[in-house]
């Protein structure tokens, strides 16, 4: 392992196994007031977004996951999991975080969260 990733490692935290998150679904991670939604797509890609829709703070973790996006459960905005950007005519973005998958474990970077 290179020196750089070693250094980064110190701020990584294990939040669970990839099997804890259903395909085309999401689970939440809480840190104080902050809730982060961890999404898993049909192709087993993982994404982490703040669990807040840019429209009216709808809980994105409760939405339907499809094609790299999630549809917000409150008023159907479609948010890209990769960029956090609202799709189509809607405008706004949700904060995204890095999730690292290593040996079937999911890791978040604490430094990014603080």
């Amino acid at each position: 392992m290179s020196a750089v990733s070693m250094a980064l490692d110190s701020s990584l935290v294990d939040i669970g196994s990839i099997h804890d998150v259903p395909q085309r679904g999401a689970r939440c991670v809480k840190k104080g007031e902050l809730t982060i939604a961890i999404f898993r797509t049909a192709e087993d890609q993982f994404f982490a977004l703040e669990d807040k829709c840019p429209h009216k703070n709808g809980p994105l973790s409760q939405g339907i996951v499809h094609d790299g996006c999630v549809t917000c459960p409150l008023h159907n905005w479609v948010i890209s999991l990769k960029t956090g950007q609202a799709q189509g005519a809607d405008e706004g973005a949700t904060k995204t975080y890095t999730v690292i998958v290593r040996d079937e474990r999911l890791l978040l970077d604490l430094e990014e969260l603080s």
Partner: protein
Amino acid sequence: MSKQKLVVIGNGMAPGRMLEHLLELAPDQYEITIFNAEPRVNYDRIMLSPVLSGEKDYEEIIIHGDGWYINNNITLYKGHKVVDIDREAQTVTSEHGVVESYDKLVIATGSNPFIIPVPGHDLAGVLSYRDLDDVTAMMLAAQARDKAVVIGGGLLGLEAAAGLQARGMDVTVVHLMPTLMERQLDPSAGYLLQRELESRGIKVKTSANTKQILGDKKVTGLELDDGEIIDCSLVVMAVGIRPSTWLADNAGLEIERGIKVDPQMRTSDPNILSVGECAQVVGQVYGLVAPLYEMARIAAHTLSGDDSQEFVHLDTATKLKVTGIDLFSVGDFAEGEDRDEIVLRDANAGIYKRVILKDEKIIGAVLYGETADGAWYNDLKKKATDISEMRDTLIFGQAYQGGAAMDPMAAVAALPDDAEICGCNGICKSQIVGAINEKGLTSLDEVRAHTKASASCGTCTGLVEQLMALTLGDDFDPDAEKSMCPCTDLGHGDVRRLIKAKSLKTIPAVMQELEWKTSCGCAKCRPALNYYLVCDWPDEYADDYQSRFINERVHANIQKDGTYSVVPRMWGGMTSSKELRAIADVVDKFEIPSVKVTGGQRIDMLGIKKEDLPAVWADLGKAGFVSGQAYAKGLRTVKTCVGSDWCRFGTQDSTGLGIKLEKFMWGSWTPAKLKLAVSGCPRNCAEATCKDIGIICVDSGYEIHFAGAAGLDIKGTEILGNVSTENEALEHVVALAQMYREQGFYLERIYKWAARIGLDEIRSQIMDNEERRQEYFDRFVFSQKFAQVDPWSERVSGKDKHEFKPMAALQLEAAE
């Protein structure tokens, strides 16, 4: 180079458009700050009338959402009125004390509605018609379904009158002049318009001057000059607007009717520009968006350092946005020595057309009842075409030029490339056709998004659709069965048929075999497919929870703050002290903030945290409750009245039948929600005649109703037929529900399905064909074997545990 500072005062339609142009022309030149006295983003003010009449929501008329400002790095001060401009220091100050400095300033303060200073003009209940707050106030006032008077029979006044009437008010329009909309219509057209409004129940008083508005603290009536008193609780003044110039005036800028600007939109101070209704350019002020959008375009050029653009006066055509009334007027239509006119009247059809000519050229046109040729006349007028050749047929319209009559499509085809189609946005035919061809647009929404045509007031939608049909040929079919969603070209009907025909039993199989265009569908098609598969293969299909909307996934209703509400079944609306006590205990134990009796005869507990749901259900389950499926596209409530058990008029045991139906049918999934009711006699206290399926008990038995609606639409039920015993009633209702389950499109309520299939077809299958009825009944019973599982008890025993708990809770780090 550091950015210059641009400050904009007012966030209406004109500066909004200006900034769009400016961000395109010179994206990095300015750091932009906007002050807006209204506490909101930029919305389509023109569309307030459809909001008032209930045809649109505020959300649908927003032009720039909050995200747009964020993405373009624009600071928007909402609810900040600017009260001072200091031209020496180059700063502006808002009423809340915010001070911003500018290199360039744009004043776009619009206009203020004019209030006639009659006695009583300041009573509560006197409103103007300018912004969303006015509309909200009118909507609130209309809830009283009382009487309203609109002062002013111009464009705004009539739109307000029509909107208030649509909201259930009894409306009188009081107009000073002898005919309505006299600035846009000649007396003949004004008369036809008045007749049309009166036939819709709106009273019109012309040549009527308001003497005073009556009332102590609140409006109670209005008195006219001739002494007549009209009772009313709401007065809307729509008598005109005045450019809002006081701010510019205080700053010492040159003012006449509006803020004077040169053809590049600069005021007498070269660092200050002005656009919109407040600006006076080439001697004119304007009150329609088309010229304001032109000002916006020019101001953007000027701000970007390009002085080459000049404002030139153009007549704007007027249309009234009241559904079902077609009128069009443009240019000058006064009579005069040097003018000629051609008039066509068709009294029966209510059509009036008048074209005004000067030196064999069109200078104005007024059309009522049939306005399709408006664009054509406007085009001839703009180009000053000599019409002597076609004078004899001119009034019949474009279709009659060149011999044979043309159909509307041919008429659109014959329009020249530069004919204006969308007046609001100044979009001509070739721009629309060009965008369709270059960008491969196929839907009206796409054309709106790319060209803005038909995106403002919407009156040109028909023309735009004809242009699309012309350009796309067979590829454009507005009546075609709409595809389910962008993931497929197939409609719901095709998909349902093919699922059966090809025995498709999983979502991936459907997507593969029917050539879905996306890898895993979208939030529209996945829930639909999941329902079709649940319905068609009840024993084989494994319900895909990730394709269900959250409410159906966690068996509770999500609320706006992310908490949930829980509604247990109360069979037929009956409850007991034991049940009520159990509910009370749950409410106390989980500190549930709200308890409400629903419109469906049961109790809703609102504001429950997601993590608490399983425990709440466990406690409710112990008291014998099951889920009320208040969230489901499935059987909801069965409302009943007390019936023969107690009521002196009850003919049958309506409560008992309701409970039987609910116990038989609960848990079943349906295309859209399904609500039932049973009333004990035709007095109908359970409101059975507006339900999806309703039963009215009568002496001789049971009258079965269906296809009612009392939600977004209101519609009384249709009668399916009469039966004499309770068991027959149950059998018929269940068979009907199964027929609907098998044929309905996802989210299609039973009344819409019935309209599509035909009432007679449904009656003949359910009432007359015993064998068919029995088959439907049996299939329903079979599917209930798999559906009637209480989802709450399942989850209490551990199903889908992951749904209700966070996967990790990270510790907050202690401060170092």
